[in-house]
């Protein structure tokens, strides 16, 4: 069910539906929260390659910033640019956070260095497993790409739930607006250049109700995934 529809239905029928269907009967155990280890493992030592399809799985993820939104339909370009930019980044936008660094938002938030066990990055489950807010939140993510040579006419291919913005080496390269579901290769950047050596990729995902995740990979001019790069968070 689309997030907006969930939101609308939730608004309309929250009262009417109380006590129906989803509440376990007396004596029944509540389902346990899926652990973080189901989706992530701590980033291992040494850089890793993208997966076989080119998806980047190593990330520094910041615990979610509370940003209440009852619906994802507010995520127009104007709104998302205003809420996700250099100035709203918690900390120094041009510096690479260290694993376990904390930044001060409404609450202290910690950076986690993680390897996704899946092709995508399950932000909802990341927040849920840490006991953090899952809805009405902003996630920041950072990773470092080490390119063995200069690569021209490369494109960043992003899917996200919901809206997001992405910066490569400080420049905005991809923007996804509106109430979005995550699909691979949803939005592609213009042709860009991966410098030889270190390149910093930074993203911010905003979500109201519903699941939240993202997937990112680089594609060459012919649309093939780029795999001869290394990824790390340092």
């Amino acid at each position, binding site marked *: 069910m689309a997030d907006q529809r969930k939101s609308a239905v939730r608004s309309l029928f929250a009262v009417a539906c109380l006590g129906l269907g989803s509440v376990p009967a007396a004596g029944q155990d509540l389902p346990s929260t899926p652990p973080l280890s189901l989706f992530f493992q701590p980033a291992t030592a040494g850089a890793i390659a993208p997966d076989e399809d080119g998806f980047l799985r190593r990330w520094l993820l910041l615990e979610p910033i509370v940003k209440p939104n009852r619906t994802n*339909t507010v995520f127009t*370009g*104007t709104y998302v640019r205003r809420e996700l930019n250099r100035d709203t980044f918690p900390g120094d936008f041009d510096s690479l956070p260290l694993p376990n660094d904390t930044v001060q938002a409404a609450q202290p938030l910690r950076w986690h260095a993680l390897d996704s066990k899946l092709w995508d990055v399950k932000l909802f489950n990341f927040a849920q497993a840490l006991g953090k807010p899952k809805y009405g939140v902003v996630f920041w993510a950072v990773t470092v790409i080490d390119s063995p040579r200069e690569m021209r006419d490369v*494109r960043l291919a992003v899917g996200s739930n919901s809206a997001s913005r992405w910066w490569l080496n400080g420049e905005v390269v991809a923007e*996804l*607006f509106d109430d979005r579901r995550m699909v691979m*290769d949803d*939005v592609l950047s*213009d042709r860009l250049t991966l410098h030889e050596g270190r390149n910093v990729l930074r993203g911010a995902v905003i979500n109201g109700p519903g699941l939240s995740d993202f997937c990112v990979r680089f594609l060459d001019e012919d649309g093939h995934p780029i795999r001869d790069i290394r990824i790390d968070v340092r």
Partner: protein
Amino acid sequence: MINPLVPRTGRLATVAAALAFGLQAAPATAQLEGEVFIHDPSTVTFSDGKWYTFGTRGGGLVSEDGWTWSSGPVRPGGGLAPDVIRIGDRYYVAYAVGGGGLGGGHASEVKVMWTKTLDPDSPDFEYHDVGVVASSDGVENNDAIDPAFLYAEGRLWLSYGTYFGTIRIVELDPKTGKRLAGNEPVDIAIDMEATALLYRDGWYYLLGTHGTCCDGPNSTYNIRVGRSRDVLGPYVDNMGIPLLRGGGKFVAGARGRMIGPGHFGLIDLGGGVEKFSMHYESDMDRGGRSVLAIEPLLWRDGWPVAGSNVAPGTYEIQSERSGNALQLKTDFVRIPFDVRRSFMAGPDDPVSPLPDQTLAENSAVWPKGNIRVDLSAYMVRPNQHWTVKPVPGAGGWFGAPYYSITIAGTERALAVTADGGEVETVPTFTGAESQLWRIDQLTDGTYRISPKAHSRRGDVALVAIGTSTPTLARFDPESDAGRWRFRTP
């Protein structure tokens, strides 16, 4: 090309009229430009950077872009309804002398000659006579005119004939152009003339013209087809009716101001674009005279059928890759709507129409300068509606004019970005090359959209490289990424 049912005197009169082609420029129409008057055009053939077609008598037409044509080609021998094919470094030319009912006779000879170039200004331009490869004696039920080549699987075939009896096929030697020793003609159709042969996916196709020719706007000419696994037949139509009994699946007929198509010739332009040349017996916008035309060719369930250029109008431009619509990448503008009332309303509550979102409502959030485009769910919104129309004087490419693509109700035009690599919209259409688009129908009925600005890099087109991202990239005919549909809102 000659209907034997027309009384001889009348027939000669109409033929004389049909042959009286002038060369002055025609008024601008939606079809080709320049000197386009021709009857029985040969297969349009590329030679030395230009495209050539020859007609009845000795004349022909030449073009650099398949849109603007002029006279100038040279074909000795005169006669009727030639055809041209390139094999190796030779261009073989077949043409008929005699027959066709002209002067009352059906005795005719199909002759072949070859040259290394069709360009009369080339030092290699010289016709060499091969000789007679087929004939009719004037008594038998055959009239050896309207020859058509097919080179397939290393073998060279020639069909010929008209309504006076049967269509026949013979085999030629591709090295010399001569008839193979001992080869005998085989009857493959009746009730046809102006035939053409194609080979595709293991099928041989025999196309030809039904109806009456040479009668201006009253010509009932139309193009038909049958197919066979064997080049020698039997050719049957979609209903299983043999072409030897008068069958023939419809391919092309009169449309709009163009009457009486005939004399099919395939133009395979590569990259998934196939077109066909023909003459219309009558262009109503050019005094009802016979003209060259080029239109898209579609393939449906293994059968060729005429396609169509995009008609001027306002459309959703839908990506075949994702089903999403090309749109201005602007803030989504909501239509005021009370969701709660909708959910809670009873079945008998009164309803009234909601108005469409207006251009003013949608454009209130548009930035003033250039705006990029993306792909999104089609929502019948003004930033998703594109007006497509030919640009007068901008030229065209193989039967399709260059178009402007603007947001409906505005001058905001789809354009190539300054760096040449992406697509955006500019606030005002100026006619600049970066704002002109070639729209070619592909064989499956979808369209390829190519920027004129990249016409020298012929394989660049509008391509959906992501679910929501269009760009300019190499066109891959095997992929849906570069295919688009023009759908009425």
